[in-house]
């Protein structure tokens, strides 16, 4: 290494003029030029290069401290790594080239500074800065119960002209609606306000904020949105009284065409055998078969058609109409 640098300095010196610290070496150069012969072509006019000597690998003990040889990330040095490693495309009928003068081994990142012994040493030094996870929160259920709001954010590490990544500002806020204090009307209004951001299967509301340039701002904005949604859904506006049947989220059997139809049919069949009027209808409503019919129809409309629901509807209809 040192020989290289001194050679470079010497050549510079000859072109531009003697460098301050190297007067003595320049004098040595002129003296050496006079003595060397034509056979010394590559090193003519330069200090004779001393021998490289034996590589350090031969002097290494088997039980040496490897963390001292490679304490930090460094390129591969064939003279410092006592392993006969070969790398590269093999010569025809031969083997991959050896480690001395092998560029492939220098190009690829090596983990010689991160051997298990080194990792253990580093972790021992880092241990005092770590804290323990609270032992009471061992299951996901307990975590959800005490800490229902989940804030997700992403950080990016990469090499480039800039450290910043604009996607790092995005924040997702996830919360289960069952953990918020909402009554029936508030929940329905919240679902209408939020629209697609709610997943029915998992009961999770996801708010994604990316409108502010900084992550902290987006985080505050997401919490602000949640607060506003919560308080707005508890409010009842005057125009909410105009909610029609088409706006309803769930099917309710009371005052529906199905109720009218079944009561009319039963009255026509003269099941009760008494006079007509409101009392008859009320009495019919109170009957068990009619209640079963009501349950089956509600279930069909809300959950959709499936084997179970259709069977239940069939049984209820048979009972009501005495088939």
């Amino acid at each position, binding site marked *: *290494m*040192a020989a290289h640098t*001194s050679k470079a300095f010497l050549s510079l010196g000859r072109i531009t003029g003697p460098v301050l610290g190297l007067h003595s070496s320049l004098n040595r150069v002129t003296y050496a030029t006079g003595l060397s012969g034509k056979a010394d072509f590559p090193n003519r006019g330069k200090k004779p290069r001393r021998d490289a000597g034996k590589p350090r690998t031969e002097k290494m003990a088997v039980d040496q401290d490897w963390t*001292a040889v490679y*304490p*930090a*990330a460094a390129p591969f040095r064939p003279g410092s790594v006592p392993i006969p490693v070969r790398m590269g495309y093999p010569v025809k009928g031969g083997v991959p080239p050896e480690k001395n003068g092998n560029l492939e081994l220098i190009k*690829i*990142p090596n*983990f010689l500074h*991160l051997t*298990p012994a080194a*990792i*253990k*040493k*580093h*972790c021992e*030094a*880092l*241990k*005092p*800065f*770590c*804290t*323990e*996870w*609270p032992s009471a*929160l*061992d299951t*996901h259920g307990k*975590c959800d119960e*005490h*800490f*229902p*709001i*989940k*804030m*997700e*954010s*992403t*950080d*990016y*590490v*990469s*090499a480039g002209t800039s450290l910043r990544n604009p996607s790092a500002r995005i924040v997702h806020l996830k*919360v289960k609606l069952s953990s*918020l*204090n909402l009554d029936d009307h*508030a929940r329905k209004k919240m679902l209408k306000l939020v629209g697609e951001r709610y997943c029915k299967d998992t009961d999770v509301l996801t708010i994604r904020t990316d409108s502010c340039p900084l*992550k*902290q701002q987006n985080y505050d904005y997401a*919490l602000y949105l*949640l*607060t506003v949604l*919560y308080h707005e859904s*508890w*409010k009842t*506006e*005057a*125009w909410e009284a105009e909610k029609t049947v088409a706006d309803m989220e769930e099917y309710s059997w009371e005052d529906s065409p199905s109720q009218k139809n079944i009561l009319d049919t039963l009255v026509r069949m003269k099941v009760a055998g008494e006079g007509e009027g409101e009392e008859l209808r009320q009495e019919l409503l109170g009957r068990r078969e009619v209640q079963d019919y009501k349950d089956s129809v509600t279930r069909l409309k809300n959950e959709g058609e499936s084997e179970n629901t259709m069977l239940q509807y069939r049984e209820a209809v048979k009972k009501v109409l005495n088939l």
Partner: protein
Amino acid sequence: MAAPMAVSRDICSLARIFVGISQLGTRGLSACRSHRKCNIIRSHLPLTSSTFFHTGAVFSSTPSSITVTDEPDTLFQKVSVLVKGHDRAVLDSYEFFATMTAKELGITLGKVFEPPKDIDRFTLLKSIHIFKKHRVQYEMRTHYRCIELSHVTGCTAQVYLEYIQRNLPEGVAMEVSKTAMEKVPDHILQPIWNDKPTDNKPSQSEQS
């Protein structure tokens, strides 16, 4: 001349990692991103420890001193580290390093898996002018590795991530997604309309 230079280089790098825990700390403080609350604040400089008043004893052997504060630590339900690189062997080694570090620091590992690689291919003209029939094709392969940690505290996550990121090899990129858990804020526990019904309704009717 070569030997002393190498030794001094080693000493400098040693200083960077082992003795320079306090320096790690200072850089960590300045690089603090979303970790607003830290249970442990790393102190600045080791030599003038008398300027710091802290509850813990001053250890003369370790140059850095740890201050413990009462601020609640952030809790991460999941920390997902995705590393991307062009070479699968490098990612294998890095995964071994990251999983071993997690075990040494006592962090529970979730899934450690390899998402399928992406190959970007494109076809260019071989010559700068004409010869449309002769093209050359290039491809870029991106391999992935995902290491998920579960139930990590904010301080531990910061220590682990900083250590992992400082030892990220060249040519490898990383994305870290953290899921922090929080309590329901106090202003969302009860609707405010219950406290002041008279104030809000007239204002609503005015606006509507």
